[in-house]
């Protein structure tokens, strides 16, 4: 009976997405329409698309999984950085809109007069987001296999079709479906918190029970939670303060520099809408996170040791197998909504990186708007297909994987973007050195960290930190040096 109910929820969701997504196709006449919905989005649409893009499978599966394993220490690791990063985006919104650009790498070309910077920005976007979409595909696959009782490798084909359909219509389609997805995310997270807290006997009882847990996190994993650590700010040493602080370089600064949010600033109707969009979206997201925090820690109380392979699978397992409620299907669909609403936005940015920032940037031949938009659709299909193939053997631990990718985004985009907006002395050479240096160190350090440093005392420094530090130093030093040289040349 409950399986039929799940199927009904899924069919209803599919029809809704098809209906809302199709209207975007009629409204695309130019590249600005396709990438930025013609920069016409009002406050409500902007808030919905910003919040829905933000709230991904990392938030809806990875975060409850981390809360399940580490309790309250998962909050400083991720949510603190996200909210502070959003404050950076508010600051960015006012300056960025003064430039007539369609993408963030294009801002680099205009600000630094460098086609190379635009192409490098496009390249990092293509690779970074292809990997980040794996998170969404994995999240979707985990839920779909629970929802319809089908194998993971088959279930991920569904999201492939969903994201292609909703992205082909450009940001108009993405935004319309984002409104539906945000409503589902909001409803699903509040419902899950309500039912889980209720079954734990209220918030105080939930905390009292969580304080006593000292079991294995996942069956057979050997990782034991010390008694009291779920309510401790640093999980009694499992998440040391230095690790939580340096993790800000991944989640916080990566979010601040993230082109998917900067694009939302450019798609808003005006500066006021752009700035308020971020503040109001974070206000809404705060309520969703409170619900997810209670649901994540409450899940541990309901089931102290989960018989699943990864912490990402805990939340859907609790909803499907432990909670046993008729609205469970709606909660599972809300996880799908979180994955889809982020994946389609990211696929649109992959297309812009490949076609606008790399191909059009370097190609001198004329191409009509219509042909160019179709070329974008080909790029969307290609990007989606590569992500799908990579998602067949996905990484474990969505939250950690996501913070590593955002760390690379921070090490490359952050200083050229904010420095270009707020520091007059920032030079092209400084921006290129910062971007390349940050990229090489952050990618190289990830290999060093996971091959040699895990299990040593150096493990407590988040792997995003060295790349961001090098990027910062190169940006300042090379900019100052080249600005000085330029000044001397002008004087002589």
């Amino acid at each position: 009976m409950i399986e039929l109910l799940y199927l009904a929820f899924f069919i209803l969701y599919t029809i809704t997405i098809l209906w809302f997504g199709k209207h975007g196709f009629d409204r695309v006449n130019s590249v600005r329409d396709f990438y930025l919905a013609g920069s016409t989005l009002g406050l409500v649409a902007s808030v919905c698309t910003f919040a829905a893009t933000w709230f991904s499978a990392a938030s809806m599966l990875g975060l409850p999984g981390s809360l399940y394993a580490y309790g309250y220490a998962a909050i400083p690791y991720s949510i603190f950085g996200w909210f502070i990063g959003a404050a950076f985006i508010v600051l960015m919104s006012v300056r960025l809109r003064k430039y007539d650009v369609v993408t963030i790498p294009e801002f680099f070309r205009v600000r630094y007069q460098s086609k190379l910077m635009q192409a490098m920005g496009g390249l990092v976007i293509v690779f970074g987001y292809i990997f980040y979409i794996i998170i969404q595909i994995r999240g979707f696959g985990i839920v779909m296999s629970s929802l319809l009782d089908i194998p993971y490798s088959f279930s991920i084909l569904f999201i492939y079709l969903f994201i292609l359909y909703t992205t082909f219509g450009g940001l108009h389609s993405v935004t319309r479906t984002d409104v539906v997805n945000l409503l589902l995310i909001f409803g699903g997270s509040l419902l899950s918190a309500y039912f889980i807290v209720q079954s734990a006997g209220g918030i105080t009882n939930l905390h009292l029970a969580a304080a006593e847990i000292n079991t294995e996190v996942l069956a057979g994993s050997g990782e034991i939670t010390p008694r009291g650590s779920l309510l401790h700010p640093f999980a009694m040493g499992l998440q040391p303060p230095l690790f939580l602080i340096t993790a800000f370089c991944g989640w916080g600064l990566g979010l601040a520099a993230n082109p998917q949010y900067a694009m939302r600033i450019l798609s808003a109707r005006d500066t006021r809408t752009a700035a308020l969009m971020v503040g109001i979206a974070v206000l809404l997201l705060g309520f969703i996170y409170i619900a997810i925090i209670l649901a994540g820690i409450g899940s541990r109380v309901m089931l102290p040791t989960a018989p699943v392979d990864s912490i990402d699978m805990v939340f859907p397992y609790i909803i499907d197998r432990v909670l046993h409620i008729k609205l469970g299907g709606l909660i599972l669909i809300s996880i799908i909504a979180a994955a889809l609403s982020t994946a389609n936005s990211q696929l649109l940015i992959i297309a812009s990186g490949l076609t606008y920032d790399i191909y059009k940037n370097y190609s001198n031949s004329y191409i009509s708007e219509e042909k160019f938009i179709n070329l974008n659709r080909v790029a969307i299909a290609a990007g989606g297909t590569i992500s799908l193939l990579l998602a067949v053997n996905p990484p474990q631990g969505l939250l950690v994987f996501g913070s590593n990718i955002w760390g690379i985004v921070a090490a490359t985009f952050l200083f050229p973007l904010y420095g270009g907006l707020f520091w007059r002395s920032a030079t092209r050479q400084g921006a290129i050195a910062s971007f390349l240096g940050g990229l090489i160190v952050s990618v190289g350090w990830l290999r060093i960290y996971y091959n040699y440093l895990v299990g040593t005392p150096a493990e407590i420094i988040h792997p995003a930190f060295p790349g961001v530090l090098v990027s910062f130093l190169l940006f300042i030093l090379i900019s100052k040096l080249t600005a000085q040289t330029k000044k001397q040349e002008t004087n002589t």
Partner: protein
Amino acid sequence: MAEKFLFGLPVVTWLLVVAPFTVFWFLPLVLAKIILNRQQGTGID
């Protein structure tokens, strides 16, 4: 000294996790309001 609790959660967690969460939660909206009010004052858009 015995550990203090509020709603079953240690006070230290309220101070180090819940309080900063609340501050950071409202930070973007407060910042947006301040920036927009200043812009309105100077007439710049």
